[in-house]
């Protein structure tokens, strides 16, 4: 094994071009587990810890451009305003020690269907900035996941950043696990209300081979909210509507039975989480509308 230690992003891209089998390592919270357990013996480890750019985030028009290696702890502390869904999801990642090292870039690189960031990225809307010596391309996050632990990166590409739409309305995240801390999701659900476009977006984790959006549920809910004039009135979402939204979300799942839960349980849990996150987010939206109207 060789340990490659680029000092700049350009050097990292050059190293990845020269050694396409090199495994990038930043926080190490996935890669080192595989090495410790002898599940992986990469020819090259490509250490990204020295590349300061990857640890920065900035505003980019309506997006937050989040450096690939910004740890979850900093997302929680610094980005709860523009990225509330991702900040909520970040709070559920592993433990303080893991959140101090793990990052969204790592979640995307590993592309586990259970990665906690994925539902929030899908719900907010995001593009993955994939770079190589050939140039940079933006991959819509829903096209980034190509299979269980597989993604759309070419062998010479590295994740530079994720461009995530800033919230224009309330966002929520929910996750089912056996306890509060250090839990890999049995399944998870992210929801974002987008009042500016009168749309709703969702993300489902760990209930299909890849993270997915529940598009039928999104379309149904957007149409129903518009039909009933709820965006304008700020009235409560009728329970039957919320229930149907949940059922449609469950319909977007394609889960498996495994040690963490059965397929049937996952479908049921996704329906419940969809209904509940809608309730929480809609309450926040209504509160906001009321405040705006009173002012």
């Amino acid at each position, binding site marked *: *094994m060789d340990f490659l230690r680029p000092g700049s992003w350009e050097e990292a891209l050059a190293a990845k071009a020269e050694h396409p089998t090199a495994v990038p390592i930043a926080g190490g919270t996935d890669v*080192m587990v595989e090495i410790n357990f002898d599940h992986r013996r990469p020819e090259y480890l490509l250490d990204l810890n020295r590349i300061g750019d990857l640890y920065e985030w900035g505003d980019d028009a309506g997006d937050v451009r989040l450096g690939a290696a910004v740890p979850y702890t900093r997302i929680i502390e610094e980005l709860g305003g523009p990225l509330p869904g991702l900040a909520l999801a970040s709070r559920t990642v*592993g433990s*303080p020690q893991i959140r101090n090292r793990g990052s969204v870039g790592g979640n995307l690189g590993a592309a586990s269907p259970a990665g906690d960031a994925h539902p929030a990225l899908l719900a907010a809307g995001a593009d993955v900035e994939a770079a190589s010596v050939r140039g940079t391309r933006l991959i819509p996050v829903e096209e980034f996941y190509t299979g269980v632990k597989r993604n759309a990166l070419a062998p010479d590409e590295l994740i530079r950043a994720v461009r995530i739409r800033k919230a224009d309305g309330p966002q929520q995240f929910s996750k089912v696990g056996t306890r*509060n801390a250090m839990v890999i999701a049995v399944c998870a659900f992210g929801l974002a209300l987008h009042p500016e476009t009168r749309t709703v977006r969702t993300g489902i984790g760990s209930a299909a081979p890849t993270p997915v959006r529940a598009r039928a549920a999104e379309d149904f809910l957007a149409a129903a909210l518009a039909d009933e004039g709820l965006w304008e009135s700020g009235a409560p979402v009728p329970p039957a509507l919320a229930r149907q939204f949940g059922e449609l979300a469950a319909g977007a799942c394609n889960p498996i039975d495994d040690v963490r839960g059965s397929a049937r349980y996952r479908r049921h849990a996704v329906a419940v989480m969809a209904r509940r996150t809608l309730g929480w987010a809609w309450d926040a939206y209504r509160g906001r509308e009321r405040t705006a109207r009173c002012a």
Partner: protein
Amino acid sequence: MRVNFTVNGRPQQADDVWEGESLLYVLRERLGLPGSKNACEQGECGSCTVRLDGVPVCACLVAAGQAEGREVVTVEGLAAYARHRAGRPPREDPAELSPVQQAFIDAGAVQCGFCTPGLLVAADDLLEHNPDPSDADIREALSGNLCRCTGYEKILDAVRLAAARAGEAG
């Protein structure tokens, strides 16, 4: 490969380090610092918690090469680290413990002791940033450290004791 870094304030050099080796292995097996414990090797148990440039991390998930040029504090260096942080001169008695270590002993928070080093590093970091933590703060800060003796209540007592003593002293 060779790795140069600072451990508990002292420059250290480890030779013939395998590229896939963890920081934990280097600390324990190459530098003779067995305080950080090796248990799950997957970031679940927290028994290998150390400070890396001040940040609590699982040493089992840091590749040794990633520690190059960095500063590591292990449980062995906790007493000196705490004294330095308090602006006190280096201790004369090498057996003197850090306040959080003393509180663990006084509260009976040590059973088999295997999880203790990681808990001490995590608890010390908590009190550094939050001198008067709520019970929820303590539970959250220690949620990455497992005690399979299940001695959690005494561990919570110890952190409360350390915080109370620091409050009285301050």
